[in-house]
């Protein structure tokens, strides 16, 4: 099984930090107009959010695994709820490669696989080097076409 590029930890930590800041600003606004406790409350919220977010990002990276098997793409992920997904190539509708601003900053890309299913209609593999992402993209496309021929 393949794990993600280690830079993805930094991407996730930054995302978590941005979330913490938004939460902090929100707390500060609520405090200003409703509670009037003091700005330290917002600081506490930010610290707590970071204290949860940073270890979570690291743990998330440690758990994330994927593999391109013979018939299916297999993913293993989730810190609190561990999820194992198998996406048979026959069911792949289309494949996207995405690069968000933070991801681009750290030279990473994501591959998104779409199926016709209702619940897991899209499956994302984050934290890939762009070369690896396009490799996986092409490989999945070929496998999807091949397995289509077999049916």
């Amino acid at each position, binding site marked *: 099984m393949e794990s993600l590029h280690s830079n993805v930890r930094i991407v996730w930590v930054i995302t978590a930090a941005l979330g913490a800041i938004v939460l902090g600003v929100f707390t500060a606004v609520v405090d200003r107009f409703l509670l009037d406790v003091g700005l330290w409350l917002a600081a506490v919220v930010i610290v707590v959010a970071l204290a949860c977010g940073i270890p979570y990002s690291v743990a998330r990276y440690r758990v994330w695994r994927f593999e391109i098997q013979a018939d299916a793409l297999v993913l293993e992920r989730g810190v609190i*709820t*561990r*999820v194992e997904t198998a996406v*048979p190539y026959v069911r792949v509708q289309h494949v996207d490669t995405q690069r968000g601003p933070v991801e681009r900053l750290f030279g990473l890309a994501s591959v998104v696989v779409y199926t*016709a299913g*209702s*619940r*897991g209609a899209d499956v994302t593999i984050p934290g890939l080097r762009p070369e690896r992402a396009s490799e996986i993209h092409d490989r999945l496309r070929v496998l999807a076409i091949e397995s289509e021929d*077999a049916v």
Partner: protein
Amino acid sequence: MRLHSLSGIWNALGYGVNGGSVVFFVWMIGLTLSDLPVSLLFVVVPVGFLVGVGYGVAQYLLFEYELTDETFDITSGVLNRTHREIPYHRIQNIDVTQSFGKRLFGCAVLRMETAGGGSTEATLDFVSKEEAVRLQSAVRQRKRAAAETAATESEQTNQESTTEPTLLFELRPRELALLTVAFLRPGALLLVLFGIPAGGDLATTVLLSLARPLGGPESLSVSAVSPNSLLVLVGVGLPLVVVGTWVVSGLITVIEYFGFQLGRVSNDLVYQRGLFRRYSGTIPLEKIQSLTITEPVLARPLGHAGLQVETAGYAAGESERGSQSAIPFSSRDRVFELARAIEPFEQLTFTRLPARARRRYVVQYLLVIGGLIAVGYLFSALVSEFTLWYLPVVALPVAPVAAHYKWKHRGYHVGEHHISFRAGYWRRKTKVVPYYRLQTVFTSQTVFQRRLGLATLTADIASSTSLGGANPTAYDIEGEEANRLHTLLCERLQHALSSRQ
């Protein structure tokens, strides 16, 4: 072909009224801002009306549909012209809806669904009933012809096979009566709750006079209602709401399922139903993704059940998207007989969940009750008159019983060509999924499940019902068993696909 001429008149009038009223309101706003002459209203409003009528007529005249050999074509639009071609083999369902008004004029709305997107692909609003029926069967025939030429190009197609549906099921009055009692719609609760304020004084008088002997408030004014008496009021009101919900839900059921008939035309199921508004629809057998057998708690002792089929498209007029009733309500034997005619699955013997799962449910329920008590206690500390914070304690003895029944009705069955899931006490749903319909397979374990060695397995299919409906999911099964099933399902899918070649 054009739509029914009445549709043009109706459409023109609708746009006319819209046009007139828009001009009216804009003029009125203009009046408040500047001193436009009021009398000019009698000129501009009719002009707005006429423009609207003109647009409506143009829309009617410019809307044309055509049955070609391979596609159903629609050309429409006044300012933005759209030409749409729908290949017959892509059409999932064809629904014909007759509202009460349209029935009086012998007209109907026809809708065609394909698998993609959440919206209807083609709507003919509206055509004569005969034209709708003609289109329905014509599209069906062309679909079949397209499928046959695709399968065996050399073989001659005989289109003259049966077009008259053979009747498979008809809802008898007794079954409809039982259905109204046994099938309680949660949605009816909202209607009742919104209906009570509309009922006005009568509703409040009845409620107050019933609650007073038990310690209810004298009136509904803020000064007379103490938190305790409010609780009594709720205690008395709740059964009334339940009865009301039941009646409303029964009425909706009758309106929806009156005169239900299911038939079969070659490879399609066709149904019609409805008291005021008649629905008729087509379900192609080869597009069915899964079957769901529903047994409400009151129906189980009667040995009755309902059957729904899920397709990947969108179903007109059904509460759950993509799910259609094949049998609203009948004896279990008949339901299973028809279900097996659609998908031949074997006798279902369900594997129960490990006993640890039941313990997990007890703990879950206890946590909910504990949470309620905690919230109540906090509230009582803030509001001194509220003293009944410990009331949720009465639910404590119920928790293990509830957990047991939840556990008892959950299970799964791994068959030769299908996997089945069962869940739900109040409305038990059994979902049968053929292996070749599987899309993706998920196994998930929360922290607590991991501690107990349990896992939840989802066999995702391409239907749109999963929100709120029965998921094809086995909850809290043995962890190792989940792993085994996970690989097994993937293998069976590959196997089923290669053998269907």
